[in-house]
Protein backbone atom coordinates (compact mmCIF):
# COMPACT_ATOMS: atom_id res chain seq x y z
CA UNK A 1 0.00 0.00 0.00
CA UNK A 2 1.23 3.45 -0.75
CA UNK A 3 -0.68 5.05 2.07
CA UNK A 4 1.55 6.63 4.63
CA UNK A 5 4.85 6.09 2.85
CA UNK A 6 5.78 9.71 2.90
CA UNK A 7 8.84 10.71 4.83
CA UNK A 8 10.20 7.20 4.80
CA UNK A 9 13.65 7.11 3.25
CA UNK A 10 14.15 10.81 3.80
CA UNK A 11 13.21 10.23 7.42
CA UNK A 12 15.52 7.23 7.57
CA UNK A 13 18.36 9.43 6.36
CA UNK A 14 17.51 12.16 8.81
CA UNK A 15 17.37 9.76 11.71
CA UNK A 16 20.59 8.07 10.68
CA UNK A 17 18.96 4.69 10.19
CA UNK A 18 20.69 4.59 6.84
CA UNK A 19 23.49 6.74 5.51
CA UNK A 20 23.62 8.31 2.05
CA UNK A 21 26.69 6.24 1.24
CA UNK A 22 24.94 2.98 2.18
CA UNK A 23 21.91 3.97 0.14
CA UNK A 24 24.09 4.84 -2.83
CA UNK A 25 26.07 1.59 -2.56
CA UNK A 26 22.92 -0.49 -2.46
CA UNK A 27 21.50 1.24 -5.51
CA UNK A 28 24.76 0.83 -7.38
CA UNK A 29 24.95 -2.86 -6.61
CA UNK A 30 21.30 -3.34 -7.54
CA UNK A 31 22.07 -1.61 -10.83
CA UNK A 32 24.81 -4.18 -11.39
CA UNK A 33 22.57 -7.14 -10.68
CA UNK A 34 19.78 -5.79 -12.90
CA UNK A 35 22.15 -5.03 -15.77
CA UNK A 36 20.09 -7.28 -18.05
CA UNK A 37 17.39 -4.60 -18.01
CA UNK A 38 19.75 -2.32 -19.94
CA UNK A 39 18.16 0.66 -18.20
CA UNK A 40 21.41 2.60 -17.77
CA UNK A 41 23.78 3.79 -20.48
CA UNK A 42 26.28 5.32 -18.07
CA UNK A 43 26.66 4.61 -14.38
CA UNK A 44 28.54 7.45 -12.70
CA UNK A 45 29.77 5.34 -9.81
CA UNK A 46 32.70 7.47 -8.65
CA UNK A 47 30.94 10.80 -8.70
CA UNK A 48 27.81 9.32 -7.15
CA UNK A 49 29.77 7.94 -4.20
CA UNK A 50 31.50 11.28 -3.78
CA UNK A 51 28.15 13.07 -3.76
CA UNK A 52 26.86 10.54 -1.25
CA UNK A 53 29.84 11.16 1.03
CA UNK A 54 29.29 14.90 0.88
CA UNK A 55 25.66 14.36 1.72
CA UNK A 56 26.68 12.21 4.65
CA UNK A 57 28.91 14.99 6.00
CA UNK A 58 25.98 17.37 5.80
CA UNK A 59 23.70 14.98 7.67
CA UNK A 60 26.34 14.50 10.39
CA UNK A 61 26.55 18.26 10.80
CA UNK A 62 22.78 18.30 11.01
CA UNK A 63 22.60 20.48 7.92
CA UNK A 64 20.95 18.53 5.09
CA UNK A 65 20.03 20.64 2.09
CA UNK A 66 16.46 19.40 2.07
CA UNK A 67 14.31 16.34 1.43
CA UNK A 68 16.34 15.38 -1.64
CA UNK A 69 19.70 15.38 0.12
CA UNK A 70 21.33 11.97 -0.37
CA UNK A 71 18.51 10.60 -2.49
CA UNK A 72 19.80 8.57 -5.48
CA UNK A 73 18.31 9.69 -8.79
CA UNK A 74 18.81 8.87 -12.46
CA UNK A 75 18.57 11.12 -15.49
CA UNK A 76 17.54 10.33 -19.05
CA UNK A 77 20.49 10.48 -21.40
CA UNK A 78 19.21 13.45 -23.35
CA UNK A 79 19.88 15.84 -20.50
CA UNK A 80 23.34 17.43 -20.37
CA UNK A 81 25.36 16.40 -17.32
CA UNK A 82 28.71 18.10 -16.79
CA UNK A 83 31.65 15.72 -17.02
CA UNK A 84 29.41 12.76 -17.78
CA UNK A 85 28.83 11.35 -21.26
CA UNK A 86 25.52 12.39 -22.84
CA UNK A 87 24.68 10.27 -25.85
CA UNK A 88 20.93 10.51 -26.58
CA UNK A 89 21.47 6.79 -27.39
CA UNK A 90 22.94 7.86 -30.73
CA UNK A 91 26.23 7.30 -32.51
CA UNK A 92 26.15 11.01 -33.22
CA UNK A 93 26.93 11.80 -29.58
CA UNK A 94 28.92 8.80 -28.46
CA UNK A 95 31.81 10.11 -26.42
CA UNK A 96 30.28 13.55 -26.01
CA UNK A 97 31.08 14.81 -22.52
CA UNK A 98 28.74 17.65 -21.61
CA UNK A 99 30.52 20.83 -20.55
CA UNK A 100 27.51 21.90 -18.47
CA UNK A 101 24.56 20.67 -16.46
CA UNK A 102 21.02 21.05 -17.67
CA UNK A 103 19.19 23.40 -15.32
CA UNK A 104 17.06 20.58 -13.90
CA UNK A 105 20.18 18.48 -13.28
CA UNK A 106 21.87 21.42 -11.57
CA UNK A 107 18.83 21.93 -9.37
CA UNK A 108 18.86 18.28 -8.30
CA UNK A 109 22.55 18.43 -7.48
CA UNK A 110 22.18 21.74 -5.64
CA UNK A 111 19.72 20.02 -3.34
CA UNK A 112 22.08 17.17 -2.64
CA UNK A 113 20.56 14.49 -4.83
CA UNK A 114 22.98 11.74 -5.80
CA UNK A 115 23.22 11.28 -9.56
CA UNK A 116 23.64 7.55 -10.19
CA UNK A 117 23.77 7.68 -13.96
CA UNK A 118 22.16 8.29 -17.35
CA UNK A 119 19.30 6.16 -18.52
CA UNK A 120 18.58 4.52 -21.85
CA UNK A 121 16.07 5.78 -24.41
CA UNK A 122 15.04 5.62 -28.04
CA UNK A 123 17.61 7.45 -30.15
CA UNK A 124 17.11 11.19 -29.66
CA UNK A 125 13.87 10.39 -27.82
CA UNK A 126 12.18 9.36 -31.04
CA UNK A 127 10.06 6.34 -30.35
CA UNK A 128 7.57 4.76 -27.98
CA UNK A 129 9.37 1.57 -26.99
CA UNK A 130 12.88 2.51 -25.85
CA UNK A 131 13.98 -0.07 -28.39
CA UNK A 132 15.60 2.11 -31.03
CA UNK A 133 18.76 3.35 -29.35
CA UNK A 134 22.31 2.31 -30.25
CA UNK A 135 22.79 0.68 -26.88
CA UNK A 136 19.94 -1.72 -27.44
CA UNK A 137 16.43 -1.97 -26.02
CA UNK A 138 15.41 -1.53 -22.39
CA UNK A 139 13.63 -4.47 -20.77
CA UNK A 140 10.60 -3.92 -18.61
CA UNK A 141 11.43 -5.08 -15.03
CA UNK A 142 7.94 -6.53 -14.78
CA UNK A 143 9.04 -9.12 -17.38
CA UNK A 144 10.95 -10.73 -14.49
CA UNK A 145 8.36 -10.21 -11.81
CA UNK A 146 6.64 -13.06 -10.05
CA UNK A 147 3.34 -11.50 -11.13
CA UNK A 148 4.16 -11.77 -14.83
CA UNK A 149 5.90 -15.14 -14.66
CA UNK A 150 2.91 -16.66 -12.87
CA UNK A 151 0.63 -15.59 -15.68
CA UNK A 152 2.79 -16.48 -18.66
CA UNK A 153 2.40 -19.94 -20.10
CA UNK A 154 5.50 -21.17 -21.89
CA UNK A 155 4.56 -22.38 -25.36
CA UNK A 156 7.11 -25.18 -25.34
CA UNK A 157 9.91 -26.62 -23.25
CA UNK A 158 12.56 -25.14 -25.47
CA UNK A 159 11.06 -21.66 -25.56
CA UNK A 160 13.59 -19.36 -24.10
CA UNK A 161 12.07 -17.62 -21.11
CA UNK A 162 14.27 -14.70 -22.07
CA UNK A 163 12.48 -14.07 -25.36
CA UNK A 164 9.25 -13.42 -23.50
CA UNK A 165 10.34 -10.11 -22.07
CA UNK A 166 8.18 -7.06 -22.63
CA UNK A 167 9.10 -3.51 -23.55
CA UNK A 168 9.12 -0.58 -21.16
CA UNK A 169 7.39 1.77 -23.57
CA UNK A 170 9.17 5.02 -24.40
CA UNK A 171 11.02 6.98 -25.02
CA UNK A 172 11.99 7.39 -21.34
CA UNK A 173 12.04 3.63 -20.83
CA UNK A 174 15.37 3.54 -19.04
CA UNK A 175 14.22 6.04 -16.45
CA UNK A 176 10.94 4.18 -15.92
CA UNK A 177 12.74 0.84 -15.59
CA UNK A 178 15.25 2.34 -13.15
CA UNK A 179 12.53 3.66 -10.84
CA UNK A 180 10.43 0.52 -11.23
CA UNK A 181 13.32 -1.80 -10.30
CA UNK A 182 14.28 0.23 -7.23
CA UNK A 183 17.70 1.21 -8.52
CA UNK A 184 16.85 4.86 -7.86
CA UNK A 185 14.14 6.79 -6.08
CA UNK A 186 13.25 9.17 -8.85
CA UNK A 187 14.28 9.76 -12.42
CA UNK A 188 14.04 12.48 -15.00
CA UNK A 189 12.54 11.73 -18.36
CA UNK A 190 11.32 13.96 -21.15
CA UNK A 191 7.84 14.17 -22.63
CA UNK A 192 7.06 15.42 -26.11
CA UNK A 193 4.25 13.07 -27.17
CA UNK A 194 3.91 10.93 -24.08
CA UNK A 195 7.48 9.79 -23.56
CA UNK A 196 7.28 9.96 -19.77
CA UNK A 197 3.68 8.84 -19.23
CA UNK A 198 3.80 5.89 -21.65
CA UNK A 199 6.72 4.05 -20.00
CA UNK A 200 5.41 5.04 -16.57
CA UNK A 201 2.15 3.23 -17.33
CA UNK A 202 3.95 0.13 -18.68
CA UNK A 203 6.42 0.00 -15.77
CA UNK A 204 3.95 0.64 -12.98
CA UNK A 205 5.35 3.96 -11.82
CA UNK A 206 4.07 7.52 -11.62
CA UNK A 207 4.89 9.63 -14.67
CA UNK A 208 4.27 13.37 -14.55
CA UNK A 209 4.29 15.68 -17.55
CA UNK A 210 4.28 19.24 -16.19
CA UNK A 211 2.68 22.22 -17.90
CA UNK A 212 4.79 23.52 -20.77
CA UNK A 213 6.72 26.51 -19.45
CA UNK A 214 6.86 25.37 -15.83
CA UNK A 215 10.16 23.53 -15.84
CA UNK A 216 13.29 24.69 -17.66
CA UNK A 217 14.36 22.93 -20.83
CA UNK A 218 17.84 24.46 -20.73
CA UNK A 219 20.22 21.58 -21.28
CA UNK A 220 17.54 19.16 -22.47
CA UNK A 221 18.62 18.26 -25.99
CA UNK A 222 15.59 19.43 -27.92
CA UNK A 223 13.26 17.40 -30.03
CA UNK A 224 10.25 19.71 -30.47
CA UNK A 225 10.91 23.05 -28.80
CA UNK A 226 7.23 23.97 -28.60
CA UNK A 227 6.21 20.72 -26.89
CA UNK A 228 9.18 19.21 -25.02
CA UNK A 229 9.07 19.19 -21.24
CA UNK A 230 11.25 17.48 -18.64
CA UNK A 231 9.25 14.59 -17.14
CA UNK A 232 9.26 13.22 -13.60
CA UNK A 233 9.14 9.49 -12.77
CA UNK A 234 8.66 8.32 -9.19
CA UNK A 235 7.07 5.48 -7.25
CA UNK A 236 4.32 7.56 -5.71
CA UNK A 237 2.50 10.84 -6.35
CA UNK A 238 3.89 12.54 -3.22
CA UNK A 239 7.42 11.98 -4.50
CA UNK A 240 6.48 13.53 -7.83
CA UNK A 241 5.22 16.60 -5.98
CA UNK A 242 8.55 16.88 -4.15
CA UNK A 243 10.51 16.62 -7.40
CA UNK A 244 8.22 19.15 -9.05
CA UNK A 245 8.77 21.51 -6.16
CA UNK A 246 12.52 21.34 -6.57
CA UNK A 247 12.54 21.73 -10.34
CA UNK A 248 9.78 24.16 -11.28
CA UNK A 249 10.21 27.87 -11.67
CA UNK A 250 11.47 30.51 -14.04
CA UNK A 251 14.93 29.99 -15.53
CA UNK A 252 16.62 33.02 -17.12
CA UNK A 253 18.42 30.54 -19.38
CA UNK A 254 15.12 29.31 -20.85
CA UNK A 255 12.97 32.11 -22.13
CA UNK A 256 10.03 29.75 -22.58
CA UNK A 257 9.68 29.32 -18.83
CA UNK A 258 6.99 31.52 -17.35
CA UNK A 259 7.93 34.26 -14.94
CA UNK A 260 5.18 33.59 -12.41
CA UNK A 261 6.42 32.84 -8.93
CA UNK A 262 6.22 29.11 -8.34
CA UNK A 263 5.54 27.94 -4.79
CA UNK A 264 6.40 24.31 -4.00
CA UNK A 265 3.47 22.58 -2.33
CA UNK A 266 2.67 19.62 -0.15
CA UNK A 267 -0.28 17.56 -1.27
CA UNK A 268 -3.30 17.63 1.03
CA UNK A 269 -4.92 14.32 1.91
CA UNK A 270 -8.12 14.76 -0.03
CA UNK A 271 -11.06 13.00 1.58
CA UNK A 272 -14.01 14.81 0.02
CA UNK A 273 -14.23 14.63 -3.76
CA UNK A 274 -17.82 15.88 -3.96
CA UNK A 275 -16.74 19.26 -5.29
CA UNK A 276 -14.74 17.71 -8.12
CA UNK A 277 -15.92 17.50 -11.69
CA UNK A 278 -14.23 14.74 -13.67
CA UNK A 279 -14.50 14.74 -17.45
CA UNK A 280 -14.39 11.53 -19.48
CA UNK A 281 -13.47 12.42 -23.09
CA UNK A 282 -15.34 10.02 -25.32
CA UNK A 283 -12.79 10.23 -28.13
CA UNK A 284 -10.25 8.55 -25.87
CA UNK A 285 -12.21 5.35 -26.35
CA UNK A 286 -9.84 5.00 -29.28
CA UNK A 287 -9.72 2.17 -31.80
CA UNK A 288 -7.47 -0.53 -30.46
CA UNK A 289 -8.13 0.22 -26.81
CA UNK A 290 -8.03 -3.13 -25.02
CA UNK A 291 -11.24 -4.22 -23.33
CA UNK A 292 -9.26 -4.67 -20.16
CA UNK A 293 -8.17 -1.04 -20.04
CA UNK A 294 -11.61 0.12 -21.06
CA UNK A 295 -13.00 -1.76 -18.07
CA UNK A 296 -10.42 -0.27 -15.70
CA UNK A 297 -11.16 3.22 -17.02
CA UNK A 298 -14.84 2.64 -16.43
CA UNK A 299 -14.18 1.29 -12.97
CA UNK A 300 -12.13 4.39 -12.15
CA UNK A 301 -14.91 6.68 -13.34
CA UNK A 302 -17.35 4.77 -11.13
CA UNK A 303 -14.95 5.08 -8.23
CA UNK A 304 -15.09 8.85 -8.49
CA UNK A 305 -18.85 8.83 -9.00
CA UNK A 306 -19.49 6.60 -6.01
CA UNK A 307 -17.30 8.83 -3.88
CA UNK A 308 -19.49 11.81 -4.68
CA UNK A 309 -17.65 13.48 -7.55
CA UNK A 310 -19.45 14.72 -10.61
CA UNK A 311 -18.41 12.52 -13.53
CA UNK A 312 -19.50 13.58 -17.00
CA UNK A 313 -18.77 12.59 -20.53
CA UNK A 314 -17.11 15.33 -22.56
CA UNK A 315 -15.94 15.72 -26.12
CA UNK A 316 -12.57 16.73 -27.53
CA UNK A 317 -13.58 16.50 -31.18
CA UNK A 318 -10.15 17.00 -32.74
CA UNK A 319 -8.44 14.27 -30.73
CA UNK A 320 -7.97 11.96 -33.69
CA UNK A 321 -6.06 14.60 -35.63
CA UNK A 322 -3.61 15.18 -32.83
CA UNK A 323 -1.32 12.39 -34.01
CA UNK A 324 -1.26 13.63 -37.59
CA UNK A 325 -0.71 17.18 -36.42
CA UNK A 326 2.11 16.00 -34.17
CA UNK A 327 3.66 14.06 -37.00
CA UNK A 328 4.00 17.21 -39.12
CA UNK A 329 5.01 19.64 -36.38
CA UNK A 330 7.42 17.19 -34.79
CA UNK A 331 9.24 16.28 -37.99
CA UNK A 332 9.43 19.97 -38.94
CA UNK A 333 10.98 20.97 -35.63
CA UNK A 334 13.24 17.92 -35.70
CA UNK A 335 14.50 18.88 -39.15
CA UNK A 336 15.54 22.18 -37.66
CA UNK A 337 16.87 20.88 -34.33
CA UNK A 338 18.96 18.12 -35.81
CA UNK A 339 20.72 20.57 -38.14
CA UNK A 340 23.18 21.37 -35.35
CA UNK A 341 24.77 17.93 -35.63
CA UNK A 342 27.40 18.48 -38.27
CA UNK A 343 30.51 17.07 -36.62
CA UNK A 344 32.28 20.39 -36.37
CA UNK A 345 32.01 21.39 -32.70
CA UNK A 346 30.96 18.19 -30.95
CA UNK A 347 29.82 14.69 -31.53
CA UNK A 348 30.73 12.27 -34.25
CA UNK A 349 32.72 13.59 -37.20
CA UNK A 350 33.26 11.69 -40.40
CA UNK A 351 36.71 11.27 -41.93
CA UNK A 352 35.34 12.69 -45.18
CA UNK A 353 37.24 15.91 -45.73
CA UNK A 354 36.55 17.06 -49.28
CA UNK A 355 34.21 19.91 -48.40
CA UNK A 356 32.07 21.11 -45.49
CA UNK A 357 28.88 19.95 -47.18
CA UNK A 358 30.18 16.49 -47.92
CA UNK A 359 31.66 16.22 -44.42
CA UNK A 360 28.33 17.19 -42.85
CA UNK A 361 26.47 14.75 -45.10
CA UNK A 362 28.83 11.88 -44.29
CA UNK A 363 28.82 12.67 -40.57
CA UNK A 364 25.04 12.64 -40.50
CA UNK A 365 24.85 9.52 -42.62
CA UNK A 366 27.12 7.76 -40.13
CA UNK A 367 25.69 9.25 -36.95
CA UNK A 368 21.90 9.01 -37.22
CA UNK A 369 19.74 5.91 -37.27
CA UNK A 370 16.88 5.30 -39.74
CA UNK A 371 14.23 6.78 -37.48
CA UNK A 372 16.06 10.07 -37.01
CA UNK A 373 16.99 10.37 -40.67
CA UNK A 374 13.43 9.58 -41.66
CA UNK A 375 12.00 12.34 -39.50
CA UNK A 376 14.57 14.86 -40.73
CA UNK A 377 13.71 14.12 -44.34
CA UNK A 378 9.95 14.22 -43.72
CA UNK A 379 10.32 17.46 -41.82
CA UNK A 380 12.28 19.03 -44.62
CA UNK A 381 9.58 17.96 -47.05
CA UNK A 382 6.83 19.64 -45.03
CA UNK A 383 8.91 22.79 -44.77
CA UNK A 384 9.54 23.15 -48.50
CA UNK A 385 8.20 26.42 -49.88
CA UNK A 386 5.52 24.64 -51.89
CA UNK A 387 4.40 22.60 -48.84
CA UNK A 388 4.81 25.09 -46.01
CA UNK A 389 1.28 26.47 -46.11
CA UNK A 390 -0.42 23.14 -46.77
CA UNK A 391 1.38 21.15 -44.13
CA UNK A 392 3.25 23.16 -41.54
CA UNK A 393 0.88 26.13 -41.23
CA UNK A 394 -2.09 23.81 -41.60
CA UNK A 395 -0.79 21.69 -38.71
CA UNK A 396 -0.33 24.82 -36.60
CA UNK A 397 -3.97 25.71 -37.24
CA UNK A 398 -5.11 22.23 -36.28
CA UNK A 399 -2.98 22.57 -33.15
CA UNK A 400 -5.03 25.58 -32.14
CA UNK A 401 -8.24 23.62 -32.65
CA UNK A 402 -6.92 20.82 -30.44
CA UNK A 403 -5.86 23.28 -27.75
CA UNK A 404 -9.24 25.02 -27.94
CA UNK A 405 -11.06 21.71 -27.43
CA UNK A 406 -9.46 21.53 -23.99
CA UNK A 407 -10.14 25.18 -23.21
CA UNK A 408 -13.83 24.70 -23.94
CA UNK A 409 -14.07 21.61 -21.75
CA UNK A 410 -12.27 23.20 -18.82
CA UNK A 411 -14.36 26.36 -19.20
CA UNK A 412 -17.52 24.29 -18.94
CA UNK A 413 -16.65 23.46 -15.33
CA UNK A 414 -14.64 20.28 -15.64
CA UNK A 415 -11.66 20.22 -13.28
CA UNK A 416 -9.75 17.14 -14.38
CA UNK A 417 -9.95 14.74 -17.31
CA UNK A 418 -9.62 11.00 -16.75
CA UNK A 419 -8.38 8.86 -19.63
CA UNK A 420 -6.37 5.70 -20.26
CA UNK A 421 -2.63 6.25 -20.78
CA UNK A 422 -1.95 3.41 -23.22
CA UNK A 423 -4.03 1.21 -25.50
CA UNK A 424 -2.87 -2.02 -23.88
CA UNK A 425 -0.38 -3.41 -21.39
CA UNK A 426 3.26 -3.79 -22.47
CA UNK A 427 3.79 -5.99 -25.51
CA UNK A 428 6.62 -8.49 -25.89
CA UNK A 429 9.66 -7.05 -27.62
CA UNK A 430 9.49 -9.64 -30.42
CA UNK A 431 5.99 -8.46 -31.24
CA UNK A 432 6.75 -4.76 -30.88
CA UNK A 433 9.55 -4.74 -33.46
CA UNK A 434 7.33 -6.25 -36.14
CA UNK A 435 5.93 -2.77 -36.86
CA UNK A 436 8.13 0.20 -37.77
CA UNK A 437 8.85 3.04 -35.39
CA UNK A 438 6.54 5.63 -36.95
CA UNK A 439 3.56 3.27 -37.03
CA UNK A 440 4.16 2.27 -33.43
CA UNK A 441 4.57 5.86 -32.26
CA UNK A 442 1.39 6.86 -34.05
CA UNK A 443 -0.49 4.05 -32.32
CA UNK A 444 1.02 4.42 -28.88
CA UNK A 445 0.99 8.21 -28.57
CA UNK A 446 -2.68 8.57 -29.38
CA UNK A 447 -3.82 8.98 -25.78
CA UNK A 448 -0.94 11.10 -24.56
CA UNK A 449 -0.04 13.40 -27.42
CA UNK A 450 -2.87 15.94 -27.22
CA UNK A 451 -1.74 17.08 -23.78
CA UNK A 452 1.61 18.08 -25.32
CA UNK A 453 -0.16 19.81 -28.18
CA UNK A 454 -2.09 21.94 -25.68
CA UNK A 455 0.78 22.25 -23.20
CA UNK A 456 -1.32 20.85 -20.35
CA UNK A 457 -0.10 19.00 -17.27
CA UNK A 458 -0.84 15.27 -17.24
CA UNK A 459 0.05 12.38 -14.98
CA UNK A 460 -0.10 8.61 -15.35
CA UNK A 461 -0.88 6.75 -12.13
CA UNK A 462 -0.37 2.96 -11.81
CA UNK A 463 -3.84 1.52 -11.47
CA UNK A 464 -3.91 -2.28 -11.61
CA UNK A 465 -2.29 -5.33 -13.09
CA UNK A 466 -3.57 -6.74 -16.36
CA UNK A 467 -4.56 -10.35 -16.99
CA UNK A 468 -0.95 -10.95 -17.99
CA UNK A 469 0.30 -9.58 -14.68
CA UNK A 470 1.60 -6.34 -16.18
CA UNK A 471 0.95 -2.76 -15.01
CA UNK A 472 -1.78 -0.58 -16.44
CA UNK A 473 -1.88 3.13 -15.75
CA UNK A 474 -4.62 5.73 -16.06
CA UNK A 475 -4.05 9.33 -16.99
CA UNK A 476 -5.27 12.56 -15.44
CA UNK A 477 -5.05 15.79 -17.45
CA UNK A 478 -5.36 19.11 -15.69
CA UNK A 479 -5.59 22.80 -16.41
CA UNK A 480 -2.50 24.78 -17.25
CA UNK A 481 -0.29 25.36 -14.22
CA UNK A 482 -2.79 23.68 -11.88
CA UNK A 483 -0.39 20.90 -10.90
CA UNK A 484 -1.43 21.08 -7.28
CA UNK A 485 -5.02 20.20 -8.09
CA UNK A 486 -3.93 17.56 -10.60
CA UNK A 487 -1.58 15.85 -8.17
CA UNK A 488 -4.05 16.09 -5.29
CA UNK A 489 -6.63 14.17 -7.31
CA UNK A 490 -3.98 11.72 -8.55
CA UNK A 491 -2.88 11.06 -4.98
CA UNK A 492 -6.46 10.42 -3.88
CA UNK A 493 -6.84 7.94 -6.73
CA UNK A 494 -3.52 6.28 -5.91
CA UNK A 495 -4.70 5.73 -2.33
CA UNK A 496 -7.91 4.15 -3.58
CA UNK A 497 -6.42 1.66 -6.02
CA UNK A 498 -3.50 0.43 -3.92
CA UNK A 499 -1.37 -0.73 -6.82
CA UNK A 500 0.73 -3.77 -5.84
CA UNK A 501 4.49 -3.69 -5.41
CA UNK A 502 6.59 -5.44 -8.02
CA UNK A 503 7.99 -8.75 -6.78
CA UNK A 504 11.48 -8.92 -8.20
CA UNK A 505 13.95 -11.55 -7.09
CA UNK A 506 16.92 -9.17 -7.38
CA UNK A 507 15.32 -6.58 -5.12
CA UNK A 508 14.48 -9.13 -2.47
CA UNK A 509 18.02 -10.49 -2.58
CA UNK A 510 19.47 -7.08 -1.99
CA UNK A 511 17.21 -6.84 0.99
CA UNK A 512 17.05 -3.11 1.42
CA UNK A 513 16.51 -3.25 5.19
CA UNK A 514 15.25 0.26 5.25
CA UNK A 515 12.41 -0.81 2.97
CA UNK A 516 11.17 -3.60 5.21
CA UNK A 517 8.20 -1.64 6.36
CA UNK A 518 7.80 0.45 3.24
CA UNK A 519 5.87 -1.23 0.50
CA UNK A 520 6.74 1.16 -2.24
CA UNK A 521 9.98 2.61 -0.92
CA UNK A 522 9.28 6.18 -1.84
CA UNK A 523 11.53 8.86 -0.50
CA UNK A 524 9.23 11.62 0.56
Amino acid at each position, binding site marked *: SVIGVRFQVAAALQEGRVTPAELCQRCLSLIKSTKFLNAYITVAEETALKQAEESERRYRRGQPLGVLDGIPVAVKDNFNTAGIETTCASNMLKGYISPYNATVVQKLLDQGAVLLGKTNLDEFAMGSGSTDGVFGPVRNPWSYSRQYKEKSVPKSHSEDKESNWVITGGSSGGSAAAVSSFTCFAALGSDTGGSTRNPAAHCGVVGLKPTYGLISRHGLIPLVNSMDVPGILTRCVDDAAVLLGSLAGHDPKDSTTIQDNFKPFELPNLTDVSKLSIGIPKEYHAPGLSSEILALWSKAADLFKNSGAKVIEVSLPHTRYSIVCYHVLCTAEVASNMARFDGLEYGHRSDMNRS*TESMYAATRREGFNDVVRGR*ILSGNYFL*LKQNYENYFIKAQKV*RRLIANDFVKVFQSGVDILLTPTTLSDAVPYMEFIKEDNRTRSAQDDILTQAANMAGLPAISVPTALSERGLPVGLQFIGRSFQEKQLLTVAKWFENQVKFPMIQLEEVKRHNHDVFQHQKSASFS
Partner: protein
Amino acid sequence: QEVTVDMLDHLEQLALVDFRDAEGVARLQKAIQFADQLHEVNTDGVEPMDSVLEDRCLYLREDDVTEGNCTKELLKNAREKVEEYFVAPPGNIPLPKLEERETFLQGF
Protein backbone atom coordinates in the same frame (compact mmCIF):
# COMPACT_ATOMS: atom_id res chain seq x y z
CA GLN B 1 1.31 13.55 -54.26
CA GLU B 2 4.04 12.28 -56.52
CA VAL B 3 7.55 12.18 -55.20
CA THR B 4 10.09 12.52 -57.98
CA VAL B 5 13.79 11.73 -58.02
CA ASP B 6 14.49 15.46 -58.34
CA MET B 7 12.47 16.12 -55.21
CA LEU B 8 14.27 13.35 -53.31
CA ASP B 9 17.63 14.67 -54.48
CA HIS B 10 16.62 18.17 -53.39
CA LEU B 11 15.66 16.89 -49.93
CA GLU B 12 18.93 15.02 -49.55
CA GLN B 13 20.81 18.21 -50.32
CA LEU B 14 18.72 20.36 -47.99
CA ALA B 15 18.78 17.92 -45.12
CA LEU B 16 22.31 16.62 -45.71
CA VAL B 17 20.91 13.25 -44.79
CA ASP B 18 20.46 10.32 -47.17
CA PHE B 19 17.48 8.10 -47.90
CA ARG B 20 19.79 5.11 -47.81
CA ASP B 21 17.49 2.62 -49.56
CA ALA B 22 14.04 1.98 -50.99
CA GLU B 23 12.70 1.69 -47.48
CA GLY B 24 13.80 5.25 -46.76
CA VAL B 25 11.91 6.52 -49.78
CA ALA B 26 8.86 4.46 -48.90
CA ARG B 27 9.04 5.92 -45.41
CA LEU B 28 8.74 9.43 -46.83
CA GLN B 29 5.85 8.47 -49.08
CA LYS B 30 3.99 6.97 -46.15
CA ALA B 31 4.74 10.06 -44.07
CA ILE B 32 3.23 12.32 -46.72
CA GLN B 33 0.17 10.09 -47.04
CA PHE B 34 -0.27 10.16 -43.28
CA ALA B 35 0.06 13.93 -43.13
CA ASP B 36 -2.52 14.39 -45.89
CA GLN B 37 -5.22 13.53 -43.34
CA LEU B 38 -4.79 17.08 -42.05
CA HIS B 39 -6.65 18.34 -45.07
CA GLU B 40 -9.85 16.76 -43.76
CA VAL B 41 -9.97 19.38 -41.03
CA ASN B 42 -11.74 22.67 -41.67
CA THR B 43 -9.41 25.42 -40.50
CA ASP B 44 -11.15 28.42 -42.08
CA GLY B 45 -10.58 31.50 -40.00
CA VAL B 46 -8.21 29.69 -37.63
CA GLU B 47 -4.90 31.31 -36.84
CA PRO B 48 -1.79 29.10 -36.72
CA MET B 49 -0.52 28.47 -33.18
CA ASP B 50 3.23 28.86 -32.65
CA SER B 51 3.28 28.35 -28.93
CA VAL B 52 0.87 27.49 -26.14
CA LEU B 53 2.34 30.46 -24.26
CA GLU B 54 1.31 32.92 -26.96
CA ASP B 55 -0.63 35.06 -24.48
CA ARG B 56 2.48 35.79 -22.46
CA CYS B 57 5.49 37.97 -23.09
CA LEU B 58 8.76 36.25 -23.73
CA TYR B 59 11.34 36.90 -21.09
CA LEU B 60 14.34 38.85 -22.30
CA ARG B 61 17.47 39.12 -20.24
CA GLU B 62 19.55 42.24 -19.86
CA ASP B 63 22.21 42.35 -22.54
CA ASP B 64 25.00 41.63 -20.05
CA VAL B 65 27.69 39.01 -20.39
CA THR B 66 27.27 36.56 -17.52
CA GLU B 67 29.07 33.51 -18.86
CA GLY B 68 31.96 32.71 -21.10
CA ASN B 69 35.70 32.29 -20.94
CA CYS B 70 35.30 28.57 -21.42
CA THR B 71 37.12 28.15 -24.71
CA LYS B 72 39.11 25.15 -23.51
CA GLU B 73 35.97 23.40 -22.24
CA LEU B 74 34.14 23.91 -25.49
CA LEU B 75 37.04 22.86 -27.69
CA LYS B 76 37.36 19.59 -25.78
CA ASN B 77 34.49 18.02 -27.67
CA ALA B 78 35.67 18.92 -31.15
CA ARG B 79 37.63 16.38 -33.15
CA GLU B 80 39.53 18.73 -35.37
CA LYS B 81 40.91 21.91 -33.91
CA VAL B 82 43.93 24.16 -34.18
CA GLU B 83 44.69 26.55 -31.31
CA GLU B 84 41.32 28.18 -30.64
CA TYR B 85 39.75 27.30 -33.96
CA PHE B 86 37.37 24.57 -34.99
CA VAL B 87 38.77 23.25 -38.25
CA ALA B 88 36.39 22.72 -41.16
CA PRO B 89 37.09 21.34 -44.60
CA PRO B 90 36.98 23.89 -47.44
CA GLY B 91 33.59 25.54 -47.83
CA ASN B 92 31.89 26.96 -50.89
CA ILE B 93 32.12 23.62 -52.63
CA PRO B 94 28.62 22.41 -53.47
CA LEU B 95 27.58 18.85 -52.77
CA PRO B 96 28.23 16.69 -55.83
CA LYS B 97 25.29 16.39 -58.20
CA LEU B 98 23.11 13.32 -58.12
CA GLU B 99 25.06 11.58 -60.90
CA GLU B 100 28.35 12.09 -59.12
CA ARG B 101 27.17 11.53 -55.59
CA GLU B 102 27.27 8.30 -53.68
CA THR B 103 23.57 7.99 -53.16
CA PHE B 104 20.93 5.30 -53.40
CA LEU B 105 18.94 7.69 -55.57
CA GLN B 106 21.33 7.15 -58.46
CA GLY B 107 19.70 3.88 -59.37
CA PHE B 108 16.24 5.06 -58.49
